[in-house]
């Protein structure tokens, strides 16, 4: 369910902590500027990493989900962002407050709209650089090394494993309800859809907590949490390449900060 795309690229071989640093830098830099050119540069860097790491652009991801959200974001800025230079305007009823009887697309709104869409793409695309190029065990190991308590990392892996079980349970429950003549899942309308959720979610949630109750007995009987000193089968260690990439990431971030904050034009 969590997509990992294996590969032999430098991005795949990097220590997850370096990838987290790289993604975090790109994420933070995206908020330090509204200039479309600078944001385009950042997005280009993100896209180059995606292409190099061969993270696939699946159709569902872009066409069905990200593009409508981007369009909505753009339209909000175009029509509602305060601006003085009006490009196109449409009359609307004057009783609608704050609009002065006119819905106007402004130049400032257009530029800000482009910037916000670029920012949206950067924000959404930086996390897969880490999650889609790192095996879950290595990612969790590195998060523990960064200070995440082991118990939380354990909870994360347990939840992911439980997710597959509950996903299968949902399908079983839906089939069981259909056999009993329930047709709510196929019906349209918000109220009918809401009614359709109740017979699915309740049994699945109860199943989840029942499994948790059994698991609690199992982990307590194995003295879970008794000792803070742990070793790992899979260990992550930074090597020379990781340190070099980290150095260039931090240097690049500092240089970008200087340019983005306008200290050098």
């Amino acid at each position: 369910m969590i997509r990992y795309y294996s590969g032999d690229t430098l991005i795949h071989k990097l220590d997850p902590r370096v990838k987290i640093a790289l993604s975090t830098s790109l994420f933070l830099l995206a908020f330090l500027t509204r200039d479309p050119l600078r944001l385009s540069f950042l997005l280009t860097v993100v896209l180059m990493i995606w292409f190099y790491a061969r993270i696939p652009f699946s159709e569902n991801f872009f066409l069905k989900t990200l593009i409508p959200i981007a369009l909505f974001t753009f339209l909000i800025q175009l029509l509602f962002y305060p601006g003085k230079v009006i490009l196109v305007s449409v009359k609307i009823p004057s009783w609608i407050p704050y609009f002065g009887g006119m819905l106007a697309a402004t130049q400032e709104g257009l530029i800000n709209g482009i910037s916000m869409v670029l920012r949206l793409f950067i924000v959404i695309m930086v996390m897969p650089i880490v999650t889609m190029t790192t095996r879950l065990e290595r990612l969790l190991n590195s998060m523990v090394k960064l200070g995440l308590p082991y118990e939380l990392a354990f909870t994360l892996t347990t939840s992911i494993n439980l997710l597959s079980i509950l996903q299968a349970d949902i399908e079983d429950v839906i089939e069981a309800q259909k056999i009993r003549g329930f047709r709510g899942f196929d019906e349209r309308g918000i109220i009918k859809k809401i009614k359709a959720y109740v017979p699915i979610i309740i049994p699945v949630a109860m199943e989840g907590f029942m499994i948790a109750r059994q698991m609690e007995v199992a982990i307590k009987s194995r003295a879970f949490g008794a000792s803070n000193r742990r070793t790992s089968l899979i260990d992550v260690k930074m090597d020379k390449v990781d340190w070099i990439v980290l150095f260039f990431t931090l240097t690049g971030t500092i240089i970008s900060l200087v340019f983005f904050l306008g200290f050098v034009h």
Partner: protein
Amino acid sequence: MKLEVPISYVAAGAAIVALASYIPAFPVIGSGATMSAGMFITPLIGILLGPISGMLAAAIGGLIGEFIAPYIAVFGPLTFLLPTTCAFVAGLVAFGRWKEGASAEAILLAVWYILTSIWWQGQEGAEIRWYFPFLHIITLILVIVIGPRISEWIATRDKKKIALGIFLAALAGTISQHLLGNAFFIAMYSGPAKVFAVVLFVYPIERLLAATIATIIGVPLLLGLRKIGMELGPSYKPVSSTF
């Protein structure tokens, strides 16, 4: 950090939140996006597991949801903070810590007023910031006035009282999540003041609906868990589970 429930229950809660985060519930008008079932499941997790355990479950579940479906993470890696806040506040109110719940809501309101005063300076329609969070203020007042009774109601065997308690706790949670999400939208995507003139009429319906659905699911879920010997919610007897 002391959890209210065993850590395995946190894992189960996180899995349920993650699962709910990519089940579409109802469309967001005009956006092309849909709200997920996480909107009404997340406050329930806080109500069942408690503020700390629920907050952790929602945080982990939210993170997993971002791993599975990165296109829902419109606020990037910070997106998981929204369900975390929801479960935390709902859990505080449900578990009798209504003063802390009310304080959390008050802090979020203060953040809203400070942020909009700075960000919307000089913008047409900026005065909407004063009355936009009217439902948030009403919920805050309800939590302050009725707060001491909410956890008692959820712990009873009376279905009507349980429903009322869950509704109020879920409303407090989902409304806190909404305010934080708005703050992120303004800070990250320059959310202009005028767009909130439209949202003003939409969000109360959305949030009241989420709290209602949480109640419709929460009451039979709570009673069903009690029948199989799992007394979750404010009547759960704590076991020693720390990390």
